């Protein structure tokens, strides 16, 4: 005989969960009681939102399923932002929540929340387990759903009396879900048509999103792009799916993309979207986006195709499989005129910033790249810090850039860095943060301090909600309503209070030393860079504008 809690931990081990991020509470005490002597690493977080983000960061860094555990009611609702973040960016996480006793469900019991109802729209699927003997099957099914097709979060809600009830040990059978059969292989005639279109194109662009990373297709992207000789741009979520130092790389497109990427897309005659979803931050004014281009859309999610933009040639399937079928069918074409034009745009519109006597955030990130050999896993918060990181670090490989793209969750980066560090213990993991975002999950300094998790937090401290301030500067007549963060703490001293090394940097010539010292430190470090307070992210496409009409320095 085994308890439901025991079956749960056994099932998590059976599906390969190695680390669990969570916080105990009333109805999950039986589960934590099993964890007390189970052979499974569990990290005690200080807020459930951070537990969900840590599971998400773990999943993005490793490509494996992340797992978090929270109690009922407020524990479960605190997970919600983290689950929504994972859902938007198609990240496989398994969220386990405790629930009140079965006979109390719906009774307004203490710490009760209808979490399956609340998370219905932000999970790929969710379950309320009614019997302990269903736990092994449910966990196996949940893991299968989370990690196949278009990946995403799955929540399993377990009433406390299900966790404590004793049942015979059950071995689950094969997963069989009649309503769930994701299309993995692309349709061959469609792939052939795509190849014809690519071979005929004079001004093609390959536009790569996070789907390429989720499907572990970076090698195939490179082989394909080189075989057909295509310029490649990536979305924020696709950073690292194609090496940014590759001669065919246009780097990131969209609102804060490189001018060359935006010009190339807008002037293309064929746009090949791979695991990308034509987000409004990418397309700007969608009615005029790539208006002369034929569009091929390769995506595992049929509902993504034709959602925002009319597609000429849809291919439903896994990015890696589709590229494997497509690559042998494409011809190498020089397209000299097109590549010359691109080289001209790239040369005449480089990303740049103006140096002065203040610490420039872009400079900090350039220095960080040098100090870490461009090899660190970079997590970000959301806002200016995120865009500077995306523009200035230079990503070489997939799963190197970890950021909340779709939901845009401030407070994501630091706990995600904790997850990434646990997934990749030998990697250098840096959270590029803002002074606003870092305060949205700063309690996790206790987690990294206690467990000596060596993440480095580089705060681009400008004393503002910087992206809000920048929008107010450009679009709201410099009315800086509620964007100044007067009252910020001294972050270095705050870190020290948690037992974490803290450093403050306010001179450009201290940047390099501080970064080197931080990277040499065997443990977590908070680097508080007092950056030029009114530095902007350029270029920027005004919201709703064509993406080739950007505001740039100059």
């Amino acid at each position, binding site marked *: 005989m085994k308890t439901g809690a025991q079956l749960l931990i056994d099932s998590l081990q059976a599906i390969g969960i190695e680390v669990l991020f969570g916080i105990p509470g009333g109805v999950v005490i039986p589960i934590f009681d099993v964890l007390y002597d189970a052979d499974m690493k569990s990290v005690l977080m200080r807020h459930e939102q951070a537990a969900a983000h840590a599971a998400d960061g773990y999943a993005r860094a490793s490509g494996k399923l992340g797992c978090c555990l929270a109690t009922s009611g407020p524990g479960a609702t605190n997970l919600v932002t983290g689950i929504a973040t994972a859902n938007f960016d198609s990240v496989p996480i398994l969220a386990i929540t405790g629930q009140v006793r079965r006979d109390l469900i719906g009774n307004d019991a203490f710490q009760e929340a209808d979490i399956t109802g609340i998370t*219905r*729209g932000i999970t790929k699927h969710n379950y309320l387990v009614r019997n302990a003997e269903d736990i092994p099957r449910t966990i196996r099914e949940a893991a299968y759903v989370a990690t196949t097709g278009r990946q995403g979060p799955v929540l399993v809600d377990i009433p406390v009396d299900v966790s404590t009830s004793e049942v015979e040990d059950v071995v689950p059978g094969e997963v069989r879900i009649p309503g769930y059969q994701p299309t993995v292989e692309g349709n061959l005639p469609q792939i052939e048509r795509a190849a014809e279109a690519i071979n005929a194109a004079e001004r093609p662009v390959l536009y790569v999103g996070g789907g390429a990373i989720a499907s572990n297709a970076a090698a195939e992207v490179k082989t394909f792009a080189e075989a057909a000789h295509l310029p490649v741009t990536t979305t924020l979520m696709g950073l690292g799916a194609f090496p940014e130092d590759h001669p065919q790389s246009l780097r990131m497109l969209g609102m804060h993309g490189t001018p060359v990427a935006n010009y190339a897309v807008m002037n293309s005659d064929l746009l090949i979207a791979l695991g990308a979803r034509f987000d409004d931050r990418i397309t700007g004014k969608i009615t005029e986006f790539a208006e002369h281009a034929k569009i091929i859309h390769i995506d595992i999610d049929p*509902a993504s195709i034709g959602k925002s933009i009319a597609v000429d040639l849809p291919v439903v399937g896994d990015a890696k499989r589709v590229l494997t079928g497509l690559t042998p069918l494409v011809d190498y074409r020089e397209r000299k005129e097109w590549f010359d034009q691109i080289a001209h745009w790239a040369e005449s519109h480089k990303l740049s910033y103006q140096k002065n006597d203040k610490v420039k955030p872009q400079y900090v990130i350039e220095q960080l790249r040098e100090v870490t050999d461009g090899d660190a896993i970079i997590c970000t918060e959301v806002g200016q810090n995120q865009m500077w990181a995306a523009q200035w670090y230079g990503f070489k490989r997939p799963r190197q850039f970890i950021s909340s793209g779709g939901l845009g969750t401030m407070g994501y980066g630091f706990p995600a860095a904790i997850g990434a560090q646990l997934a990749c213990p030998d990697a250098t993991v840096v959270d590029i943060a803002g002074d606003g975002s870092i305060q949205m999950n700063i309690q996790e300094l206790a987690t990294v301090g206690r467990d000596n998790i060596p993440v480095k937090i580089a705060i681009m401290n400008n004393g503002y909600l910087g992206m809000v301030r920048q929008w107010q500067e450009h679009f709201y007549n410099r009315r800086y309503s509620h964007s100044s963060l007067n009252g910020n703490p001294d972050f270095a001293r705050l870190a020290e209070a948690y037992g974490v090394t803290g450093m403050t940097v306010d001179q450009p010539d201290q940047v390099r030393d501080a970064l080197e010292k931080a990277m040499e430190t065997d443990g977590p470090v908070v680097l508080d860079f007092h950056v030029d307070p009114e530095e902007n992210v350029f270029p920027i496409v005004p919201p709703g504008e064509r993406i080739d009409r950007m505001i740039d320095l100059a």
Partner: protein
Amino acid sequence: MKKHVISALVSNEVGVLSHVSGLFAARGYNIDSMNVGETEDPGISRMTIVLRGDDQIIEQVVKHLRKLINVMQVKDLSAAPFVERDLMLIKVATPPGRRGEVIDLVEIFRGKVVDISTRDMVIELSGPEAKIEAFISVCRPYGIKDVVRSGPIAAPRGANDE
């Protein structure tokens, strides 16, 4: 906007209705009616959903329904010939001396009187939407006290049903 009849097979389990209705609410699709009933397999239910929208919206609805884990099959029946039936119970006032007129109407429409009192009667009628609407309008002069409709259920015509 064109009327579409979507027919879906779903697993007969707790929460499936809220998954489907939640999808419509979250994506801002407006439905005219939704009908759920068991199929020959008690583990599987059939949903008939009637909604209006342009082709692009309907395509998205179908795709999103297919994405739901507990939805097994989704068809837009309006793409091919189909039969549609709505069931109605209508309580019509029968003013003194006019009961016979109402019964005549019931016969013309091939309905059935299922309950009767001194002041009104309850009539059962099934058929396509237009017939139901027509009957409601001819009853209106007598006074309609209540209308209860199932919303359409539908099945594709012909022997080629997959």
